[in-house]
Structure formats: structure tokens, C-alpha cells
């Protein structure tokens, strides 16, 4: 996967979570992912087609997503309930939207499918292209999450 794909997803992630969840995610150093194991306890996955095709996944640790959803909803969420799954889908959708807009500015018009959400310890993320994918690790005070992108042009 080309490096030029990384920044739009990094910027999109920070923008969405700052605006909707009032958290400041700190990005780590991106790296190539080996295997299908998810980084976190709950993941949102969305298929991408168009000038580039593949998929985007966001994978959150439990503590991290509980803080994010609590902030989004303005109420304290302490368990992994339906609201959390619903929010992960919507966050994935929004990050995909902002990132794709940034990619469109670079001449890459990409459409997105409807996100799906998978949860549970040790779940897998299987990308449309089969991999390999790039992980952009993020952290907030309460925990970590990862943006997992597998995208190829044409």
C-alpha cells in the first residue's frame, strides 16, 4: 500500500474524534500489519471502491471506545452495549467520509459501502484485498485504538 494513503486516514481520524468525541488522539508510527488479528475489542470495517479499492477498519480497546462513546453521547457508558456497536459503525462511516474527501482532493474519488461491526476478544479483521495492511496506532488517555487500512490504486 502506498504511503500517500496514510495521511488522509490519519487526518480524518483526528478530525472526527476531536469534533464528535472531544478527544485528542495521538498517532504513533505506522507499521505493516502481519496476520488478521484485530488490535482491539471492537472493530468497524468498511469496504472502499473507485479510484482505489480495499477496506478501512478501526479497532478500539474497550476502555478507549467507552470513553469515546461516553463523550459522544454526553452520558457515561460503562459496558459494551448496542450503543457502543452502533457508535463504532458511525465513527467508521464518518472517518471514511472525511478521509475520502481528502483523497478526492488528491484526485482519488472513492466510494464506501455500509460499515459492519465485529466485537469480542481476539476477533479478526479480514480485508477485501486480503492484505497486507498498514496500521496507524493511536492513543488517548484511556486506551489505544488502531486505524487499519488496506488499499490499492486502480
Amino acid at each position, binding site marked *: 500500500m502506498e504511503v500517500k494513503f496514510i495521511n488522509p486516514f490519519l487526518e480524518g481520524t483526528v478530525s*472526527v474524534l476531536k469534533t464528535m468525541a472531544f478527544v485528542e488522539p495521538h498517532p504513533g508510527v505506522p507499521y505493516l500489519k502481519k496476520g488478521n488479528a484485530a488490535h482491539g475489542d471492537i472493530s468497524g470495517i468498511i469496504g472502499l471502491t473507485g479510484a482505489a479499492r480495499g477496506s478501512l477498519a478501526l479497532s478500539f480497546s474497550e476502555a478507549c471506545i467507552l470513553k469515546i462513546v461516553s463523550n*459522544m*453521547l454526553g452520558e457515561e457508558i460503562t459496558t459494551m452495549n448496542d*450503543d457502543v456497536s452502533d457508535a463504532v459503525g*458511525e465513527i467508521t462511516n*464518518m472517518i471514511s467520509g472525511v478521509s475520502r474527501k481528502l483523497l478526492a482532493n488528491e484526485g482519488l474519488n472513492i466510494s464506501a459501502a455500509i460499515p459492519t461491526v465485529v466485537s469480542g476478544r481476539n476477533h479478526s479483521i479480514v480485508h477485501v484485498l486480503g492484505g497486507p495492511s498498514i496500521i496507524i496506532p493511536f492513543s488517548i488517555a484511556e486506551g489505544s485504538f488502531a486505524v487499519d487500512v488496506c488499499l490499492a490504486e486502480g
Partner: protein
Amino acid sequence: MDKNMKILVVDDFTTMRKVVRNLLKQSGYENIVEAEDGVSALRVLKSQKIDFIISDWNMPNMTGLELLKAVRADSEVAQTPFLMVTAEALQENVVAAVKAGVNNYIVKPFTAEVLNDKIAKIVEKMG
């Protein structure tokens, strides 16, 4: 601006409806009703007086655009201000929504200030 106006929030994501409700409350709007898709929204519009509609674009059963067209085609509710919420501002979508009579659109993610500003501008324009 009338902060007591009844606002209908339409979105298939429960969390997004709650988020929009919270943002509206931050701006002083308390009179809010919700619908989970376009079909439910039309039922709400038939059963009570709604002053303003905020609808997501991407929804199952009936999209935001289809809801907008249905609202504009119904003389009883056709004049209701309609703010479309989208995850992306694709030009063809914006053109289609404008043609169908949308009052304005807002791209996710957005703050309470941006949402309030969009509502205020629509209400001001409509007099």
C-alpha cells in the same frame, strides 16, 4: 430565533440521533423528536406538527433524499425546513438535494456551533 420549535431528527444510527440531540440541546433546543428512517419520519410528520427536519442522507428503507422528495410532495408539510446531514459532500448528491428542495446541508463531523448556525440561517431565510 424560536428555540421551542419542534425539530425532527432522522437517522438510522441511534448514537447519531443522540449526538444530534445533545448538540441541539447545547444550543438551547429542547423540543426534539426522533425517527429511525424516512418511513418512520413520514409517520411522525403525519401525526404531529414538526417545525424543522434534520435528516441523514444514507439510511435503509428510505434515504434522506427520498424523504425530502416525499416531504416536498405533500402539501401539508411541504414548507417544512429541511437540513440534510451527509458523511461526504459529493457534488452530485448536493445538486440532487438542492433540486429536490433541501434548505441546506451539513457534513459530518460537525460541532454544535456549526449545526446551530445552519439552522439559524435556514430559519432566517424562511422569515
